[in-house]
């Protein structure tokens, strides 16, 4: 790449960044949609008419915003407290920084990640579903009701991702909502390996049942007899009477065996 074309590119990039900065009041997705492809279009404009054709980024942003049906200049959001306002500005700045970072990398990384977003919306719904299953008990259920719950989670997650149900408006006015969404996304990323592991364990267990049949799992404390768990152990005397309070020790003599398993 020649020095001249590098200069032109950096000039175009700076122009696009300035235009983007004048749209921080818009939802991040809207700002991204409005400015995606701008670099290519402006590069062509500059190639045809020179860098002076770029004009004033402020005028450009006004025209772009008006064309898209937004107020010509950024409307200051009404915020009640200084701290949420500062947090919102910080989040806006972090988002703009992230956008610029992605754009500075070679290849269309942003386009690639954007294409992956629907998959992530489904994945985080599934993580939430697995967490719900985990909170309910140790087993993973794949029956009808749980599948309905999963479908509901997917719908909510996709709608959040699409900024439907007025979520876009909420995210531009409420720092708490925005932080909550960031927190939920980060939690989903953190919980994803555990959820995958849990499902893998469940699949392995299911296969084990298919291969070995209904064999009680020896959890280290269960007594099994002929492939099934013995729920009640009783010690009886020679006359067959149950000896109350008696215990049975395992072969090692190190622990007593469960005499009456309620959950059995």
């Amino acid at each position, binding site marked *: 790449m020649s020095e001249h074309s590098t200069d032109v590119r950096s000039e175009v990039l700076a122009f696009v960044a300035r235009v983007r900065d004048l749209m921080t009041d818009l939802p991040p997705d809207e700002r991204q949609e409005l400015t995606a492809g701008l670099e*290519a279009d402006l590069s062509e404009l500059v190639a045809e008419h020179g860098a002076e054709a770029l004009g004033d980024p402020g005028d450009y942003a006004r025209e772009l915003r008006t064309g898209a049906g937004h107020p010509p200049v950024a409307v200051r959001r009404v915020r009640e407290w200084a701290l949420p306002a500062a947090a919102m500005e910080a989040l806006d700045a972090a988002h703009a920084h992230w956008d610029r970072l992605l754009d500075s990398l070679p290849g269309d990384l942003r386009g690639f990640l954007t294409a992956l977003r629907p998959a992530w919306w489904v994945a985080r719904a599934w993580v939430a579903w697995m967490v719900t299953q985990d909170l309910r008990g140790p087993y993973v259920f794949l029956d009808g009701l749980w599948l309905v719950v999963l479908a509901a989670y997917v719908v909510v997650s996709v709608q959040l991702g699409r900024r439907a149900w007025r979520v876009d408006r909420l995210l531009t006015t409420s720092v708490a909502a925005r932080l909550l969404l960031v927190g939920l996304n980060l939690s989903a990323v953190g919980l994803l390996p555990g959820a995958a592991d849990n499902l893998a364990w469940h699949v392995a267990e299911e296969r084990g049942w298919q291969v070995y049949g209904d064999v009680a799992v020896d959890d280290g404390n269960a007594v099994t007899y002929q492939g099934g768990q013995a729920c009640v152990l009783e010690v009886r005397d020679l006359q067959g009477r149950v000896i109350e309070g008696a215990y049975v020790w395992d072969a090692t003599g190190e622990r007593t065996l469960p005499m009456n398993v309620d959950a059995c």
Partner: protein
Amino acid sequence: MDSTQLLKGVLDLAVLAVVDAEDGYGYDIVRRLRRGGLEDIGDASVYGTLRRLYAAGLLTSYVVPSEAGPHRKYYGITPSGRGELKRQGEDWRRFATSVTTLLDHPQGAIA
């Protein structure tokens, strides 16, 4: 008369018509509009309009990566965009005919 004011009312229609003829990226659409006679059109207005029409479901978009430079965002028309083009086109023709008739025969408007 300043054609910018006139353009505002029909920019959606003009953009839909151009994209209906062939998919295109922002600057390409601007160029085709200018070639079609709308020389005063501002490129940012067109980009904003494209975004708005896309958000309304009248256009679809896809990214075409470029090895030589930044990727291009192409726009195409959707079935509902085509329906809107037909509706707005009919409105425009009716309106233009009325105004032309009025200009040619202003006496006819006097009751």
